[in-house]
C-alpha cells in the first residue's frame, strides 16, 4: 500500500516536472543558490515577488515557481488544511525572490502531519551544484537553512533529471517517463548529496533537473532547473604546492594543475608573509602554475593557498588547497648551489639577517671554505641588503674528503653564519674520437669520463647535430640536437655507433652532463665521417726473395674503400719471436708492390702492410696479416767451399793418397743451399776432369803427377759457384820454404796467438793454411785459411795447457803448396821469462817485507829482554846489601 502511494507520488512529481518544462526552466548560472518555499498567504518577508507577479499566477515573464498544496482529502493524512506553497530559486545575494515561477497547475498534492509551522514561516534550502573535476559526475548539495521550520524532521531528497540524449527527440517537451530519479544521500548535518552521472559526450548539452524534498511529512518540489554541465565544472584543488627561492632571489610559488581537467585553468593565489619587520598579505590571479614573489626576506614565513577555475568560459572555483608554509633561513643564498664548468664566471647573491636586523650589503664579506677571504674586488652591492660575489675563470673543484664542492660563506664582517652556498666546478673537457670503418657504413665514436671528476647523481649523454655537408670552422652547440645511445665498454670508454652514416655530413657532438643542479655541455667537436676513415688493411699480401736479383719483393692489393688515393707502409724483419721491424713507406697510390734489399737472402722474412689516405686525413689501417718469404736458391753460390788436404802414405813415394777436407758452405755463401760439390782436376798429362762428390765433405784421390791442381765447385738449383778455391799439389813447390820462424803463445785455454816471420820469395803467395792438432790425441786435424797479408793470428779453440799441440803454417802459392813450418809445442822461453818476471815481482817484495818485520821483531825483543833483566837486579842505592856489588860484572 505504501509502495503504491510512493509510486503515485513519484508519477505525480514527474508529471509536475514535465508540466514545468513547458515553461522555461531555471538556468543555473550561479553555482550556489537558494530554494525557498512559502505559503500563499505569506507576505514574502524573505522572498519578495517581483512587481507585477501575482501570487497565484504562474508562468509569467520567465519566473519560476511551483506550488505545494496540502490536500486534506488524502485518506492517510488527517487534520490537514489545503495550502499551496510557492517554491522559487533566488541567488544568495538577492533578497528578492525574483526567480519564482508558479506551478502551471497551481496545486499539487502534498500531505503533512503538522503544517502549522511552515504555513507560517515557509522553508528554505541552500543548493550548490557543480560538475566534478573528472567531468563524470554532476553533484548537487541540498542543505536546509537554519530558519527551516522542518529542521527537526528527517529529510528525504530526490533529484529528477532528464538526460540530454532523451531530449534529443523532442527538445522542447520532455516526455512523461523520461525523467530519471536519483536518491540523494543525506547526512546528519542536514546536507544531502545528489549525484548525476553525465556522459562525456553530453557535457555541452542541457540537463534538466528538479528537486523533490520531503521534510516533516511535507513534500516540496523545486521549479525545473536547466544547466550545461560543462559550464559548471568545479576542478579539484591544485596539487603539489611548493615554494622555493629562485636563482634571482625571488620566492617561487608553484603547483600542479589537478589531473583530468580538459581545459586550461586560472589560479588564485593567496599568500601572507610574516616576518619580524613586515606583515603583508596578497591575493593574485594567474594563468600559469607558478607565481614569483619578489622582495623576499630572510627569517620570514610565507603561507600560501591556491585554487583553480576554468580559464575561458564559466566555471566554479575549486576549493582552496591545503595551506603550505615556507620559512626562509636567516641567510639566503641565491642561487644556493651552482654547478658550472672550468673557466666560467659565476655569481652568488646573499641576504643576511643577524639578530632580527638585515645586515647592510656594504658590511657583507665573502669567504671560501672558511679558509680564505674572497677579495673585495669581487664584491658587488646589488641593493641595500643584497650582496653579490663573482668568481672569474673558475678552476676545477678539488674534492676535500667527501665534499665535492667549495663552500661559499656570506659573512657579517667577522661573523659567518653556518649556512653556506655550494659551488661545483667540473672540468667538462671530454675528448670524443671517432673512426669510420673500412666499409664506410659505420662511424664509431668513443669517449671517456676518466678525465672529469665524477659528480654523484649526474648522468652523461652524447648529443649531436648533423649538418648537410662538411663542418663549420668553429663547432657550436645547437639548440636542436639528438641524443645518441652509448654503451660502456670494459676499457672504461663509452662507445656510440652511427650506422648508416652520411659520409660528407658534419656531425657536431658534445657530452651533456645532466645533474639536478643543472646541465653542462662539453666543448663541441665536429667530425666528418669521411675524414676519419680507418681503411681495411691491404689484402693479398705476398713476400718473396726474387731469384737472381736477390731483393725482397712485397706485393699487395689495396682495399676496396676508400676511393681516395692511399699511401702504404711496409714493415719487414727476420721472422722470429721478437721481430726487429724495418719500415718502408710507399707514397705512390698506384703501387702494388715494392722490392727492397735485405742483408740475408736466405732467411725467412715476415712482412706486413698497412694503408692510409695519402691526403693525410683518416687513420692508418691495421697491419695486414703477416706474409712470410720461403727460403730457396736465389743465386748460384757466391763461392766454392774452402778445402784443405791430408796426404796419406809414404812421403817419399811418388803416388800419394790425398784426402780433401771441404768446409761446407753456409747459407750466405751458398744462396741458399748446396745440392752437391764437384771437384775439377787438372794435370799436365791427363788434362782436366771432374768428379761429383755429392754432399760429402771428404774426398780422396791419387796424386801421381808432379803437379796436380784441384778446384772445388758448389752447385745449387741455380748453378755452380763461379768464384772457387783451387789447390795445386806440386813436388817442387813443396820444398819452397819462406816461413823463417813460427811461434805459438797461449793466451788462455781458448785462444792461442800464432805469429811468424817470412823470408822474401819470388813466388806469388795466395794465402796461408794454419793447421793444428793435439799430439796426445788421435783427433782430426784442424785448419784455417788466412790471408797472405797477416803475420799473426788468434786461433780460437779449446786448448788444454798440459797437452801438446802441433802447429803448422803452410804457405799456399799459385804454383802449389809450399814447405810448412811446424812447431810441436808452445814457445817456451818467453813464457818462462814471463813467469820469472812474475815471480820476481811477487817474491822480492815478500822477502823485503819479511826482513823488515824480522828486524823489527828482534829490536823489540831485545829492548824487552833488557828491561826485564834489569828489573830483577836490585838498585844499589836503595838496597844496602847490594851496595858495593858490581852487577855489570
Amino acid at each position, binding site marked *: 500500500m505504501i509502495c503504491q502511494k510512493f509510486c503515485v507520488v513519484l508519477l505525480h512529481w514527474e508529471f509536475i516536472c514535465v508540466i514545468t518544462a513547458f515553461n522555461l526552466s531555471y538556468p543555473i548560472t550561479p553555482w550556489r543558490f537558494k530554494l525557498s518555499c512559502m505559503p500563499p498567504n505569506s507576505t514574502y518577508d524573505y522572498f519578495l515577488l517581483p512587481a507585477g507577479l501575482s501570487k497565484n499566477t504562474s508562468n509569467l515573464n520567465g519566473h519560476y515557481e511551483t506550488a505545494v498544496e496540502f490536500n486534506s482529502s488524502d485518506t492517510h493524512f488527517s487534520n490537514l488544511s489545503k495550502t499551496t506553497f510557492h517554491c522559487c530559486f533566488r541567488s544568495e545575494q538577492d533578497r528578492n525572490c525574483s526567480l519564482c515561477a508558479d506551478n502551471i497547475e497551481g496545486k499539487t498534492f502534498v500531505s503533512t502531519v503538522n503544517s502549522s509551522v511552515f504555513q507560517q514561516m515557509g522553508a528554505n534550502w541552500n543548493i550548490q551544484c557543480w560538475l566534478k573535476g573528472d567531468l563524470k559526475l554532476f553533484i548537487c548539495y541540498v542543505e536546509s537553512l537554519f530558519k527551516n521550520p522542518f529542521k527537526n524532521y528527517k529529510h528525504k531528497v530526490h533529484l529528477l533529471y532528464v538526460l540530454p540524449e532523451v531530449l534529443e527527440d523532442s527538445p522542447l517537451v520532455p516526455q512523461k517517463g523520461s525523467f530519471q530519479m536519483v536518491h540523494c544521500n543525506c547526512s546528519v548535518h542536514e546536507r544531502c548529496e545528489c549525484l548525476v552521472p553525465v556522459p562525456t559526450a553530453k557535457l555541452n548539452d542541457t540537463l534538466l533537473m528538479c528537486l523533490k524534498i520531503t521534510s516533516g511529512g511535507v513534500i516540496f518540489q523545486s521549479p525545473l532547473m536547466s544547466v550545461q554541465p560543462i559550464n559548471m565544472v568545479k576542478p579539484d584543488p591544485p596539487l603539489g604546492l611548493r615554494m622555493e627561492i629562485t636563482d634571482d632571489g625571488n620566492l617561487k610559488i608553484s603547483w600542479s594543475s589537478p589531473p583530468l581537467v580538459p581545459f586550461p585553468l586560472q589560479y588564485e593565489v593567496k599568500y601572507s608573509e610574516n616576518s619580524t619587520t613586515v606583515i603583508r598579505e596578497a591575493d593574485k590571479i594567474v594563468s600559469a602554475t607558478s607565481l614569483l614573489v619578489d622582495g623576499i626576506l630572510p627569517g620570514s614565513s610565507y603561507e600560501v593557498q591556491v585554487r583553480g577555475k576554468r580559464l575561458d568560459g564559466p566555471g566554479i572555483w575549486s576549493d582552496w588547497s591545503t595551506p603550505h608554509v615556507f620559512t626562509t633561513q636567516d641567510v639566503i643564498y641565491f642561487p644556493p648551489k651552482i654547478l658550472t664548468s672550468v673557466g666560467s664566471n659565476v655569481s652568488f647573491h646573499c641576504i643576511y639577517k643577524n639578530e632580527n636586523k638585515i645586515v647592510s650589503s656594504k658590511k657583507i664579506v665573502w669567504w671560501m671554505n672558511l679558509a680564505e677571504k674572497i677579495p673585495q674586488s669581487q664584491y658587488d652591492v646589488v641593493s641595500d641588503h643584497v650582496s653579490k660575489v663573482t668568481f672569474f675563470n673558475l678552476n676545477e673543484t678539488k674534492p676535500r674528503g667527501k665534499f665535492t664542492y667549495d663552500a661559499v660563506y656570506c659573512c657579517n664582517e667577522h661573523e659567518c653564519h653556518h649556512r653556506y652556498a655550494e659551488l661545483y666546478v667540473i672540468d667538462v673537457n671530454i675528448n670524443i674520437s671517432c673512426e669510420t670503418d673500412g666499409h664506410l*657504413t659505420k662511424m664509431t665514436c668513443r669517449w671517456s669520463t676518466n678525465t672529469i671528476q665524477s659528480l654523484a647523481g649526474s648522468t652523461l649523454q652524447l648529443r649531436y647535430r648533423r649538418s*648537410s*655537408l662538411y663542418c663549420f670552422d668553429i663547432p657550436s652547440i645547437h639548440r636542436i640536437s639528438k641524443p645518441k645511445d652509448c654503451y660502456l665498454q670494459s676499457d672504461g670508454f663509452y662507445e656510440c655507433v652511427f650506422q648508416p*652514416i*652520411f*659520409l660528407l655530413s658534419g656531425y657536431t657532438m658534445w657530452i651533456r652532463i645532466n645533474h639536478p643542479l643543472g646541465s653542462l655541455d662539453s666543448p663541441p667537436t665536429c667530425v666528418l665521417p669521411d675524414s676519419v676513415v680507418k681503411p681495411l688493411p691491404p689484402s693479398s699480401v705476398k713476400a718473396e726473395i726474387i731469384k737472381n736479383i736477390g731483393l725482397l719483393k712485397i706485393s699487395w692489393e689495396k682495399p*676496396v*674503400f676508400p676511393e681516395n688515393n692511399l699511401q702504404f707502409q711496409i714493415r719487414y724483419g727476420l721472422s722470429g719471436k721478437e721481430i726487429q721491424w724495418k719500415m718502408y713507406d710507399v707514397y705512390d697510390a698506384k703501387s702494388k708492390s715494392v722490392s727492397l734489399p735485405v742483408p740475408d737472402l736466405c732467411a725467412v722474412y715476415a712482412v706486413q702492410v698497412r694503408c692510409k689516405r695519402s691526403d693525410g686525413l683518416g687513420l692508418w689501417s691495421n697491419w695486414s696479416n703477416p706474409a712470410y718469404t720461403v727460403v730457396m736458391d736465389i743465386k748460384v753460390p757466391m763461392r766454392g767451399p774452402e778445402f784443405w788436404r791430408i796426404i796419406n802414405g809414404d812421403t817419399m813415394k811418388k803416388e800419394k793418397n790425398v784426402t780433401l777436407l771441404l768446409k761446407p758452405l753456409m747459407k750466405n755463401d751458398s744462396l741458399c743451399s748446396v745440392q752437391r760439390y764437384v771437384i775439377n782436376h787438372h794435370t799436365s798429362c791427363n788434362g782436366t776432369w771432374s768428379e761429383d762428390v755429392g754432399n760429402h765433405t771428404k774426398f780422396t784421390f791419387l796424386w801421381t803427377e808432379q803437379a796436380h791442381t784441384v778446384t772445388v765447385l758448389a752447385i745449387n738449383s741455380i748453378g755452380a759457384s763461379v768464384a772457387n778455391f783451387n789447390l795445386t799439389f806440386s813436388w817442387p813447390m813443396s820444398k819452397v820454404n819462406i816461413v823463417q820462424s813460427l811461434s805459438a803463445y797461449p793466451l788462455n785455454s781458448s785462444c792461442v796467438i800464432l805469429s811468424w816471420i817470412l823470408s822474401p820469395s819470388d813466388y806469388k803467395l795466395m794465402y796461408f793454411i794454419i793447421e793444428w792438432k793435439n799430439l796426445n790425441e788421435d783427433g782430426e786435424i784442424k785448419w784455417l785459411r788466412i790471408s797472405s797479408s797477416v803475420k799473426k793470428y788468434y786461433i780460437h779453440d779449446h786448448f788444454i795447457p798440459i797437452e801438446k799441440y802441433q802447429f803448422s803454417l803452410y804457405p799456399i802459392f799459385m804454383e802449389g803448396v809450399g814447405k810448412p813450418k811446424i812447431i810441436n809445442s808452445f814457445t817456451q822461453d818467453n813464457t818462462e821469462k814471463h813467469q820469472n818476471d812474475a815471480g820476481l815481482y811477487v817474491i822480492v817484495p815478500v822477502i823485503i817485507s819479511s826482513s823488515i818485520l824480522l828486524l823489527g821483531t828482534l829490536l823489540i825483543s831485545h829492548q824487552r829482554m833488557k828491561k826485564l833483566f834489569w828489573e830483577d837486579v836490585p838498585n844499589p842505592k836503595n838496597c844496602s846489601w847490594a851496595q858495593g856489588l858490581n852487577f855489570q860484572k
Partner: protein
Amino acid sequence: MYWRPLWGFLWLWPYLFYIQAVPIQKVQSDTKTLIKTIVTRINDISHTQSVSSKQRVTGLDFIPGLHPVLTLSQMDQTLAIYQQILINLPSRNVIQISNDLENLRDLLHLLAFSKSCHLPLASGLETLESLGDVLEASLYSTEVVALSRLQGSLQDMLWQLDLSPGC
C-alpha cells in the same frame, strides 16, 4: 609568388657558408670520390653483378633510364628520383646508398652555387604512389634494375663532371 625569391635565398643560404669554408676543388674532388664510392658499393652488392645487360626488364618505367644527363640540374633531378626509390627499398645496403645520394645531391647544389646558378627543388617522382604496389609484387626486380641503372647513371655523371657541366 612573391615568396619565391625569399625561399630561393633561404635555400642557398647554407651553401654560402660552405663555399667560403671549403675550396671548390675539394668539393669537385669529393663529388667524384663519392660517385666512385657509390659505384663500388653497388658493385659490392652481389646480386647486382649477376644481372644480364642483354635482358630488358619491362614495367619499371618510373626508374630513370640511362639517358645522358648533361646539366647539374638534370643530375640532381635524376638522383632525387633514385633516392626516392631507394628509400622505399628494405635492404640495409640501399639505405647507406640513399644517404650517399643525399650527400651527393648537396655537393651538386654546392657546385651549382659556385657557378652562380640555382638548382630548382627536385620534384621527384609524381607517380610514386604506385611504387608500393610494384615493390610488393617485384621487390627483387626493382632493386636490381634501380641499382644497375643508378650505377650507369653515376658513371655517366662522373664523365660529365670532368667536362664542367652547365646548370
